[in-house]
């Protein structure tokens, strides 16, 4: 869909304008836009429901356009979290919410929503979870908000946005062996910092990006928030369309928006992907990025492979390639969490799960679990984890003196075998 107005626009401007029934959205302008999906989880939805009920409406704006995913503390870890989950379950029944995902169908929301076909190109999606920006991988605009915003959007189907400026990131060149989307996004955050794209839309382009798998694109869009961004978007291409066909979507089910050739960017970065090594983000910021091979001897107590960042099939395959037929180091715990039931099943059929169990890993049902220090792998005082998740803030996975190093699945799997942060053997 091209712009009918003469002024050039970015993808973000076009999608926002479209959702306000306008031809042009001015950067910096505050617009009130219709949203295609409103999302919440077991932590944020209870508050959103509370706020929604204050408005005093009998119905939500559209029973098909709300998704509720109890993924953080589920299967419930204690009585309090069970009460929270119960509250959203009852709400979903009472208000006839179509997209409620009970444990057993549930997956980590940002892996589940695209898989369930609830995010398609051209959509405008908001979620009460900061990693809602993940669907930018599909050429949608999506972003995290708080519970009040989500409660109000459940009532009105709308929310307010300030139209952001866009920063463009060109990646060109061939990826090195084992290097994936996680390394590209860590590289970028290492360059621009955790507020390097504050309030901005990030647009990822270039030959490296065209060659990148959808799973790696989801990983990159997912971590746009770790640079402070509002959106992280990719163009729709053959890979996107193949993914959409795979989940049963037809071309008529979505709209493709693309930045105009002469659209104005606040900044354009050009990166050579061939320079990107296997990376880690050392404690306690995602921008504290170092080459894995330069780290020296860093012993670890736990490896986690999972989360909305790297719990997809491609990640499990990489882990399997490295771990299958071997034993993990006996001094560490290795926890592998497929992000959705479908990914779990696919990993089972491919034989990955059996290989992981034989190697001495724990394989868990889908949950956010240890990623936010919730349950299923909390760190004790002074312990250190290497994790494929997205945040390594103080105390993120447990005790305030524990440490989290972030990396992609290849470094995680290699480290599982050695018990110290390692890169895979050639």
């Amino acid at each position, binding site marked *: 869909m091209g712009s009918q107005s003469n002024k050039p626009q970015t993808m973000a401007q076009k999608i926002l304008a479209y959702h306000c029934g306008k031809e042009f959205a001015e950067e910096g302008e505050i617009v009130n836009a219709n949203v295609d999906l409103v999302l919440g989880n077991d932590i944020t939805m209870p508050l959103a429901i509370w*706020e929604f009920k204050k*408005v005093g409406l009998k119905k939500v704006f559209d029973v098909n356009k709300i998704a509720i995913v109890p993924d953080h503390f589920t299967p419930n870890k204690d009585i309090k979290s069970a009460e929270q989950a119960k509250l959203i379950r009852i709400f979903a029944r009472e208000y006839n919410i179509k997209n409620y995902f009970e444990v057993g169908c549930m997956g980590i929301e940002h892996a589940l929503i695209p898989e369930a076909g609830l995010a398609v190109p051209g959509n405008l999606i908001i979620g009460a979870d900061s990693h809602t920006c993940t669907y930018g991988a599909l050429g949608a605009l999506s972003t995290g908000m708080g519970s009040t915003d989500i409660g109000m959007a459940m009532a009105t189907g709308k929310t307010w946005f300030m139209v952001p400026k866009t920063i463009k990131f060109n990646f060109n060149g061939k990826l090195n062996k084992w290097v994936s989307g996680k390394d590209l996004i860590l590289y970028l955050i290492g360059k621009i910092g955790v507020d390097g794209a504050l309030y901005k839309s990030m647009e990822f382009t270039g030959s490296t990006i065209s060659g990148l798998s959808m799973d790696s694109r989801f990983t990159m869009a997912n971590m746009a928030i770790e640079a402070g961004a509002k959106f992280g978007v990719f163009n729709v291409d053959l890979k996107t369309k193949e993914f959409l066909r795979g989940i049963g979507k037809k071309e008529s089910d979505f709209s493709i928006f693309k930045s105009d050739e002469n659209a104005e960017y606040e900044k354009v970065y050009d990166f050579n992907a061939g320079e990107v090594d296997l990376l880690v983000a050392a404690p306690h910021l995602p921008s504290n990025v170092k080459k894995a091979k330069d780290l020296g001897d860093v012993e670890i107590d736990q490896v986690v492979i999972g989360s909305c960042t790297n719990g997809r099939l491609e990640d499990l395959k990489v882990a399997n390639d490295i771990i299958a037929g071997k034993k993990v180091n006996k001094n560490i715990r290795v926890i592998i969490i497929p992000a959705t039931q479908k990914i779990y099943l696919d990993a089972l059929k491919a034989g990955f799960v059996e290989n992981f169990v034989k190697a001495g890993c724990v394989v868990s049902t889908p949950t956010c679990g240890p990623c936010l220090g919730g349950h299923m792998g909390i760190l004790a005082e002074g312990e250190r984890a290497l994790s494929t998740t997205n945040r390594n803030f103080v*105390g993120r996975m447990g005790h305030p003196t524990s440490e989290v190093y972030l990396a992609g699945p290849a470094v995680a799997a290699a480290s599982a075998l050695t018990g110290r942060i390692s890169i895979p053997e050639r």
Partner: protein
Amino acid sequence: MVISDKAIKYGNNVNTDVIIPARYLNTSNENELAAHCFEDLDKDFIEKSRNSKIIIAGENFGCGSSREHAPISIKASGIKLIIAESFARIFFRNAINIGLPVISNPEAAKNIKDGDNIEVDLDRGFIKDITSGKEYKTNPFPEFIQKLIENGGYVNFVKAEALREN
């Protein structure tokens, strides 16, 4: 509205995990949340917040998760205002939506010291550091955000709209 109180100062990138750790997110009760506010950043926060009700911070305050529990726990612990060099966008929005005033002013945030006595006039747009005698001008909020604040937060705003439509 005029707010005058003592300042507690923190650094850059104060994230939502240290404002309210996820291990306490199994509740939405604001008093329970307030009891653990800033626990992993500053063990003495609760004690300090008895006499100091303005937070001063560096860049990117409130970065990290979208948990509204973060501004809620700060507000419930009695804090009246946050002045930072810059805010993470979700935190900024959440704070406005629940009626916790937040001002982004790099100069004031840099210069004001821990323990300074501060007076802020939100309507007239100035910050006065009584201890040092310095004054700073603040930008007024965009019109739409002013409307939200005038209505006492986003919920009241939407309620008013819903009433008008019926």
